[in-house]
C-alpha cells in the first residue's frame, strides 16, 4: 500500500514538470495559434541557466528560481517580436520549421560548449534531507517541487479566471479577431503571453536542475510527452493541461513500477484513447479553447 502511494507521489512530482511545461505550451497555443516545438529547449536552458549562474557568479538556486525565468521570458519576448509573430498568417509547416529550428540551435549551442555529459547541480541546503509523510519518508526537495508547482498552477488559473488580463487572454484565445474589433489590442498581449509561457518552461528547468540530469538533450527527451499531455488535457485548455500533467506523471510512475516494459508507451495509449473517446481532450470544449 505505501509502495503504491509512494509511486503515486513520484508521479505527482514528475507530473509537476509536465504540468508547468504543458501549461505554458497551452497558453501559447491558445493566444498565438503556434505550437512551440522549442518549449523543451527553454526548459533545458532554465536548468543550464541555474547551473551557469551558480558556476560563474555564485547565484544561489533560490535566486536562480527568480532570475532565470525572467531572463528567459525576456528572450522569449524578443524571439516572438523577431520571428514567431510572423507565423500567424503562414502555412503551419513554417511553425514547425521555425520553432523546431530554434530548439535544435539552442540544443547544439549547449552541446558545443558542454558536450553530452550531465552537469552536477546540488540541492539547495534548505531543501536537503527528507520529510516524514506519515506512510513513508520523502525527499524534502521533491515535496517542495510538487507544492510549488501546484501553487503556481493555481495562481495562473486564478489570474486567468479572475482578472481582467485573464479575461483578455481567454477572449483572444477564443476569438482573436472579434476581440480586436471590441477595442482590445490583442497584438499587445501576444508578446508577453509568449514570454510568460517561455518563463514557465525556464522555471521548470530551474526546478529540474537539482534532481534531473542537466544536459543538452534533457528538453528533447521531455517534449514529446508534453505534447501528449497537452492533447490529453485538451489543446488550449489550461486547466486540462495541468490536470493531464499530473495524471500522466502518475500513470508513467505506476507503469515504471508495475509494468516497466510498457511504461514508455502508456502515455501514448492514453492519448489514443482520449482522442477516440473525447477528441477535444479531457477538458477541451468543441467550440474553442478556454481557461
Amino acid at each position: 500500500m505505501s509502495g503504491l502511494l509512494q509511486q503515486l507521489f513520484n508521479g505527482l512530482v514528475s507530473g509537476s514538470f509536465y504540468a508547468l511545461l504543458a501549461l505554458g505550451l497551452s497558453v501559447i497555443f491558445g493566444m498565438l495559434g503556434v505550437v512551440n516545438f522549442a518549449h523543451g529547449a527553454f526548459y533545458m536552458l532554465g536548468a543550464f541557466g541555474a547551473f551557469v549562474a551558480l558556476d560563474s557568479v555564485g547565484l544561489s538556486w533560490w535566486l536562480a528560481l527568480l532570475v532565470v525565468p525572467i531572463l528567459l521570458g525576456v528572450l522569449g519576448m524578443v524571439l516572438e517580436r523577431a520571428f514567431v509573430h510572423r507565423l500567424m498568417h503562414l502555412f503551419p509547416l513554417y511553425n514547425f520549421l521555425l520553432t523546431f529550428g530554434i530548439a535544435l540551435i539552442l540544443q547544439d549551442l549547449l552541446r558545443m560548449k558542454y558536450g553530452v555529459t550531465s552537469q552536477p547541480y546540488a540541492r539547495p541546503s534548505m531543501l536537503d534531507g527528507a520529510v516524514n509523510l506519515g506512510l513513508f519518508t520523502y525527499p524534502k526537495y521533491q515535496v517542495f517541487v510538487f507544492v510549488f508547482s501546484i501553487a503556481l498552477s493555481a495562481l495562473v488559473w486564478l489570474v486567468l479566471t479572475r482578472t481582467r488580463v485573464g479575461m483578455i487572454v481567454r477572449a483572444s484565445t477564443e476569438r482573436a479577431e472579434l476581440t480586436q474589433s471590441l477595442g482590445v489590442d490583442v497584438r499587445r498581449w501576444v508578446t508577453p503571453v509568449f514570454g510568460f509561457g517561455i518563463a514557465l518552461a525556464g522555471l521548470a528547468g530551474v526546478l529540474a536542475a537539482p534532481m534531473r540530469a542537466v544536459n543538452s538533450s534533457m528538453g528533447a527527451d521531455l517534449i514529446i510527452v508534453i505534447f501528449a499531455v497537452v492533447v490529453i488535457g485538451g489543446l488550449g485548455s489550461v486547466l486540462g493541461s495541468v490536470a493531464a500533467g499530473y495524471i500522466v506523471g502518475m500513470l508513467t510512475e505506476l507503469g515504471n513500477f508495475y509494468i516497466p516494459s510498457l511504461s514508455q508507451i502508456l502515455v501514448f495509449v492514453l492519448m489514443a484513447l482520449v482522442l477516440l473517446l473525447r477528441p477535444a481532450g479531457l477538458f477541451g470544449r468543441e467550440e474553442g479553447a478556454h481557461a
Partner: protein
Amino acid sequence: MLNVDNVTARYGEAQVLQGVSLDVDTGEVVTLVGRNGAGKTTLLRCLMGLHRSMTGDIRFDERSIATLSPHKRCRLGLGYVPDDRGIYASLSVEENLTLPPVVGPDAWPLEKVYETFPVLAERRRQAGTHLSGGEQQMLAMARVLRMGARILLADEPTEGLAPLLVQRIGEIIRTVKEHGVTVLLIEQNVHFASTVADRHYLIAQGRVVESLDNAEVRQREHELLEYLGI
C-alpha cells in the same frame, strides 16, 4: 457621421464589393437591405477594419479611418455586433459585457444595463453561450451600449429569431436611438426595417442600387420581398 466612399473588397479573385458609397448622419437609423450574398456582411467587416483587401475611403466624423486597425476604430466609437453575435463561450455574461473598454462619455454603467435587460442580470455568472439566441443578441447590443459607442453596426440582429423576439430587438434599437446612438443595421426583413429605421439602402451585387425612405419601402414591400427572394 459615417461616410463610405467607393469601397471595394475581394475574396481572392472574386470581387464582392464593387464600389459602395453611402452616408449615415448623426442620430439616424439606416438599414442595408439586400439578398443573400449581396456583400452586406463584407461591407460591415470593411467598416470595422476586418477585411484585408479593401480599397476606397471610410470617414467617421470627417476623419478617415480606412487604415486604422479594428481596436482603434472601436475606440473611436464604432460598436460592432457581428452576424454570429460574437458572444464568448469562455466568458461569463458579465465578462462579455465588460470586455470592451469604455470608449465614450455616454457609456452605460453596468447597473443601467441590468435594469434594462433583467435577464442578463439574472444570468450574469453563466457562460455567455448558455443564453438563448435572443438573449445573446440582447447581450451583444447591451455590450455596445455599455462601451458607449456612438454608432451601432449590427449585422442581421433579427435573423432566426421568433416574431416576439424580433419585436424586442426593435424596441432595443429604438432605445439605442433615443440615447443618441446612430445605427447602421443589416436587415432582410423589410417590413421590420421600415418600423425601426429612417432610411434604407438597397444593395445588390456589391453596389448600392437604391436609397429608399420608409414610405417607399411600405409601398413597394411586395416587390422588395420578391426581389430579396423571401
